[in-house]
């Protein structure tokens, strides 16, 4: 029996009839074509699929679309209004070379943005601990951590954009 799912994704209302076993990440990628949210391990480990549900970061491979019914979801596509006006976290990743292949980047950025919502001035240790659930196989994390610290500084220096 299909279930009806209505949610707000990146500021737009969407409604679909889906099978109950549809994962949120499948819903985003296959129903809505939002392929910026990646499927890496599909086992809740790697964090490539991190999105925000009602402002909190979650692994979209470990949540059913039906569980997200009625929520507001923010994906990497919704973070910046246009390609010329990157979110400070995206800009910091670019400026600090916080990526190589880029596969983990959407999840890293969504996770890091959630960190700064809780803790506007994290220490390097706090950034590393927070990113426990995001795996990168290219960078060794060094520049990712640098980028998050840089973004934190940029965001403290400017009025924080409402999500």
């Amino acid at each position, binding site marked *: 029996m299909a279930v009806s799912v209505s949610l707000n994704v990146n500021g737009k209302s969407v409604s679909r009839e889906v099978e109950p076993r549809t994962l949120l990440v499948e819903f985003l990628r296959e129903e809505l074509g939002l392929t910026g949210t990646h499927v890496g391990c599909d086992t809740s480990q790697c964090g490539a699929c991190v999105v925000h549900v009602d402002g909190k970061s979650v692994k979209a491979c470990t949540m*059913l679309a039906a569980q997200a019914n009625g929520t507001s979801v923010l994906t990497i596509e919704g973070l910046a209004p246009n390609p010329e006006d990157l979110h400070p976290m995206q800009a910091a990743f670019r400026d600090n070379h916080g990526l190589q292949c880029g596969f983990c980047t959407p999840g890293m950025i969504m996770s890091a943005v959630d*960190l700064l919502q809780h803790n506007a001035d994290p220490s390097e240790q706090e950034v590393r601990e927070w990113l426990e659930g995001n795996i990168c196989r290219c960078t060794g994390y060094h520049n990712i951590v640098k980028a998050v610290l840089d973004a934190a500084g940029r965001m403290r220096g400017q009025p924080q954009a409402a999500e």
Partner: protein
Amino acid sequence: MYAFDYHKPSSVEEAASLLASKEDATVVAGGQTLIPTLKHRLAQPTDLVDLSGVAELKGVKMDGDTLVIGAMTTHAEVAADATVRSAIPALADLADGIGDAQVRNCGTIGGSVSNNDPAADYPAALLALGATVVTTNRSISADDFFTGMFDTALEPGEIVTEIRLPKPARAAYAKFPNPASRYAIVGVMVAESGGQIRVAVTGAGQDGVFRATDIEQALSGAFSAEAAKAVKVSPETMSADIHASADYRAHLVSVMASRAVAACS
């Protein structure tokens, strides 16, 4: 995943009646264990009953000197809650060390104790703190609730509604985590309440969480890290896997107990 039907009740009564009326219904709380299990086709429920819409199952409060946590309260909420932090800081710290930030945003205390994973953190806390698990039918002491690996005293259709934790005089949790999953290779909660010392161990036992009575006795004589560390734990009932041998786990039980004692004082 095999196909199933999905339900989102708004009350505990409605949830219980759905569980009773469907052929093989399963509760989904935070889903952080159940959804991976379904994806691996290790379970095939006919129906999923999602408790996230049941408002009465969420939240934290004090009832006299007892901390009461609703079953659907997430690990992140427990970790950040000022009432938990003030009543039992060790529990807030424990919740903050479960999995990763995204798992903590979804996973719940009720889900964790109902699942009773042998390497989960909460079962050690409940057992050491002498907690009570309240369900739709009854109240069960933690001593009676955890009955073995992935096994609890819960009957089919019974739903955990809240966890009641008496405030201890002092308590601390020390965990040696698997560096990838953050599950406990060995985790030890030490708590003192009314002069009684309880030491509960997760991650190590073949039958899941257990009380380390040898260490409790040693600590009753002298509440010191040295006393805990001096206890030789037998590897006989320890589990062994690719992460750690039984001997290594037995050794870690004393070491983690001593670290927890040191953190108590």
